[in-house]
């Protein structure tokens, strides 16, 4: 009888689990297709790095990440033991633990002890040092942790009773052996039989319960985490997918099935660890945006609406709506600075930014719904190709007092793409002048497009106005190819990223270099005659531009330049490099009103803690945000904000 019962229970439970997984999988397939299969090698590398190395889990100062690393690796070994156990349940006569090679015993023993410890630490932590948000202490977490703990107890109980009964070789099972000798040494043989059976069933029930609970809990990441990392985008903060502007198409994502299957898989994979929201400038300044909840709402929406799509019925819960579980509010979507901090720290490589921009696209392109100030911005962009709607002929005004040559094919090597800020904004014009001075001093052959230069379209794309971005890009590409331009120096990291990464999607491969990088190269090659003048600038605190750092991995460049010029390393803020805190201007936020605590003020306050005389930036957006923030904090008389180029130009002999 025993045989049949276990076989039936195991078979039913396993089938149930497969059915749940299948149902979840079917929902994934509602998503649009996207090619995430190419480049097997790099994808495998990511899995090794991020999953098996648990890089994002332990990095970024998350101490408890180590606990997860231990648990993860324990699970890897326990997977062997538990797979064996499932087969044992299905085929009790033909499979048993003792069939595993003895060398594995010790590993499984160690893994079990570590897992038990890790689970206890995790529970204690949730009680004693809870993470930043309340849901981390949800029942879900305690149920899963409890189940794992119980599984380990059953494991030791089972093997200890078997050892006590002499059924199992004890040499390689020190812990079970210890339990056997301390707890079960006086137990009668018949009772031991009962123990074995009881622990075996406890183990079986807990394991099957765990298995069937997984697809319905946040611990689904145990199943989808690895494939999710495998299929992650191979570009840094990934570039938005292009849209095909054909009549009849739907633009952006306003309904759950318009996301790609990978977006949906992302939502399954969230571990609710809260790293993203911990690092989000919007969440940190009290905005309604919380990237963790955005992902959670996508999942909730999928689970709620999925069955309706399956039956070809209309969805019941709007994806973009008033907020509330399963709906993302417009306010949330407009709060994102696309800084990429969330994506940088997410341990399972969830891609928040493209989803947010996709939903913005729906608002702008399908519904023309956006904050009022964006209307003027969009019109200015469309009509004058700059954010303020200034007359294009003013694009050359910054160079009134110097001689600048127009770019000439065959004669000029680099196009200096001044950018809207560099050309129109009074403060950034000074940076343009500093860059010109450096380029001349370094003997670079460069020219400009003058009044023919157009905006690169970065803000349009991040704000979801892909239609106009698409047009602007095509206009720009025409100008660049007509003029035979191959090499471009940009002042602004946003131009840099757009020309380099976004335009590539249009088949245009340009050699784009940010001014800080070019300057660094010139310094390294000994082509810039510099005075080391560290004293004048006082304590220099450095701020990373998101689009230079997280988007393009350029962290060392500005730092190297600063130390070459000032003679000492720049002072770091508490949040720096990959974890740098956005100035608040990216993602088109520059052109929108900000409610409540301002992101730039928060960042300025952080910088002020380091007592700087100079804050060094490499982006016109950051420059503006810092200067504004210093004014708000009344520190503008004590602290100056300079671009890397200005610091270098001051140091030129």
């Amino acid at each position, binding site marked *: 009888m025993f045989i049949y019962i276990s076989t039936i229970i195991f078979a039913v439970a396993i089938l149930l689990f497969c059915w749940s997984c299948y149902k979840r999988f079917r929902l994934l397939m509602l998503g649009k297709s996207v090619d995430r299969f190419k480049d097997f090698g790099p994808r495998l590398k990511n899995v090794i790095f991020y999953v098996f190395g648990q890089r994002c889990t332990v990095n970024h100062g998350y101490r408890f990440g180590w606990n997860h690393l231990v648990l993860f690796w324990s699970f890897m070994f326990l997977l062997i033991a538990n797979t064996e156990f499932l087969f044992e349940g299905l085929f009790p006569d033909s499979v048993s633990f003792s069939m595993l090679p003895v060398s594995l015993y010790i590993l499984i023993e160690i893994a079990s002890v570590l897992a038990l410890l890790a689970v206890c630490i995790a529970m204690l932590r949730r009680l004693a040092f809870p993470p930043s948000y309340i849901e981390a202490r949800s029942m879900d977490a305690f149920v899963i942790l409890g189940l794992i703990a119980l599984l380990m107890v059953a494991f030791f109980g089972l093997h200890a009773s078997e050892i006590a009964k002499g059924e199992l070789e004890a040499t390689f099972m020190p812990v079970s052996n210890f339990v056997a000798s301390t707890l079960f040494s006086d137990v009668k043989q018949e009772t031991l039989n009962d123990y074995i059976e009881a622990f075996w069933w406890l183990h079986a029930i807990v394991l099957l319960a765990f298995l069937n609970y997984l697809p319905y809990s946040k611990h689904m990441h145990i199943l989808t985490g690895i494939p999710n990392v495998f299929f992650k985008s191979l570009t840094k903060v990934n570039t938005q997918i292009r849209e095909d*502007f*054909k*009549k009849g198409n739907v*633009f952006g994502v306003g309904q759950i099935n318009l996301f790609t299957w990978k977006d949906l898989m992302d939502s399954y994979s969230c571990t609710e660890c809260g790293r993203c929201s911990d690092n989000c400038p919007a969440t940190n300044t009290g905005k309604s945006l919380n990237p963790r909840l955005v992902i959670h709402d996508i999942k909730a929406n999928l689970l709620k609406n999925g069955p309706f799509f399956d039956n070809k019925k209309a969805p019941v819960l709007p994806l973009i709506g008033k907020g509330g579980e399963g709906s993302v509010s417009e306010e949330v979507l407009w709060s994102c600075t696309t800084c990429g901090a969330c994506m940088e720290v997410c341990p399972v490589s969830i891609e928040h930014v493209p989803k947010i921009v996709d939903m913005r696209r729906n608002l*702008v*392109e*399908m*519904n*023309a719904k*956006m904050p*009022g100030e964006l*209307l003027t911005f*969009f*019109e200015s962009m469309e*009509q004058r190709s700059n954010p303020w709607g200034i*007359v*294009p*002929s003013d694009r050359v005004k910054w160079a009134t007092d110097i001689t600048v040559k127009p770019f000439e094919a065959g004669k000029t090597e680099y196009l200096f793409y001044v950018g809207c800020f560099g050309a129109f904004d009074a403060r950034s014009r000074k940076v343009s002048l500093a860059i010109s001075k450096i380029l001349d001093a370094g003997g670079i052959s460069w020219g400009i497009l003058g009044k023919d230069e157009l905006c690169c379209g970065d803000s349009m794309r991040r704000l979801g106005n892909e*239609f106009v971005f698409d047009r602007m890009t095509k206009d720009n590409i025409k100008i660049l190819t007509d003029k035979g331009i191959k090499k471009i120096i940009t002042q602004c990291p946003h131009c840099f990223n757009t020309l380099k990464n976004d335009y590539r999607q249009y088949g245009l491969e340009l050699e784009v270099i940010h001014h800080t990088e070019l300057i660094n190269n010139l310094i390294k090659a000994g082509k810039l005659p510099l005075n080391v003048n560290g004293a004048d600038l006082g304590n220099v605190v450095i701020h990373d531009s998101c689009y230079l750092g997280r988007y393009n991995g350029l962290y060392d460049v500005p730092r190297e330049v600063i130390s070459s010029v000032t003679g000492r390393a720049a002072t770091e803020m508490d949040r720096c490099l990959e974890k740098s805190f956005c100035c608040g201007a990216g993602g088109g936020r520059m052109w929108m009103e900000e409610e409540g605590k301002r992101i730039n003020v928060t960042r300025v306050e952080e910088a002020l803690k380091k007592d700087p005389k100079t804050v060094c930036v490499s982006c016109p957006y950051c420059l503006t945000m810092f200067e504004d923030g210093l004014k708000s904090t009344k520190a503008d008389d004590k602290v100056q904000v300079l671009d890397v180029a200005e610091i270098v130009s001051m140091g030129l002999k």
Partner: protein
Amino acid sequence: MLVITCVKQVPDTTQVRVDPVTGTLIRDGVPFIINPYDTHALEEGLRLKEKYGFRTVVISMGPPNTEVTLKKAIALGADEAVLLSDRAFGGADTLATSQVLSEAIKKLGEKEEVAIVICGRQTIDGDTAQVGPGIATRLGYSQLTLVDSIESVDLKAKKIRVRRKLEGRHEIVEAKLPAMIAVLKEINSLRYPTVPMRLMAEDSKATLWDNKIMGLQETTIGLKGSATQVRKIFSPQRASGEIIGEGLKDPKEVSRLLIDRLMEKHVLSL
């Protein structure tokens, strides 16, 4: 019932420069835009459509490239666009312009009753603010200028109530339909075209009415029908200003001096 919006395509005057030698306008390479007031006229037309179920027709007199402007109007939701374009219409002043436009409105009225004609307050190039009133006079419509809000439209009683913005006060006016209203920018905030609408508009076409279709007498239209003629365009010399109250610190004192001086010069009066 029709709401007809008159829109004019104008050179982006902020980008027009005066040739210092010849004193004429350099129009080369200057982009054309919809006259900013007319974008609000169009928006109001669309709002009336949504509220009262009118059909909205946009008309414009101008060269063939005006079609781009009209397509944008369609993208925003206009039902139909009529382009009045013919060499014979060229060189028109406000008299001749309002003649062609009112004839076109009459023609549209033959098929469907016209309730409201909406014009912008004025253009940024011609700047006369005469075309709207010209149309109203020629057609015998109620003439409501400087409108910053439409309070109500009563189709049964054939009445419209609007608010006019005058210097320092508002005026609520009720008038009979059909009416011509000339609107201010404050009347509404603009909508943004959705992409499907833009794509639809790309394939759309404005109906072209030339003088063969209009059949107007050559002496009433274009240059020949114009009562005014341009003799010279020049930028007036700016007289240099004067500085008042230099060296004084008290702002009250300085303002007193300034006001006295302005009254002396009859810029201000009691």
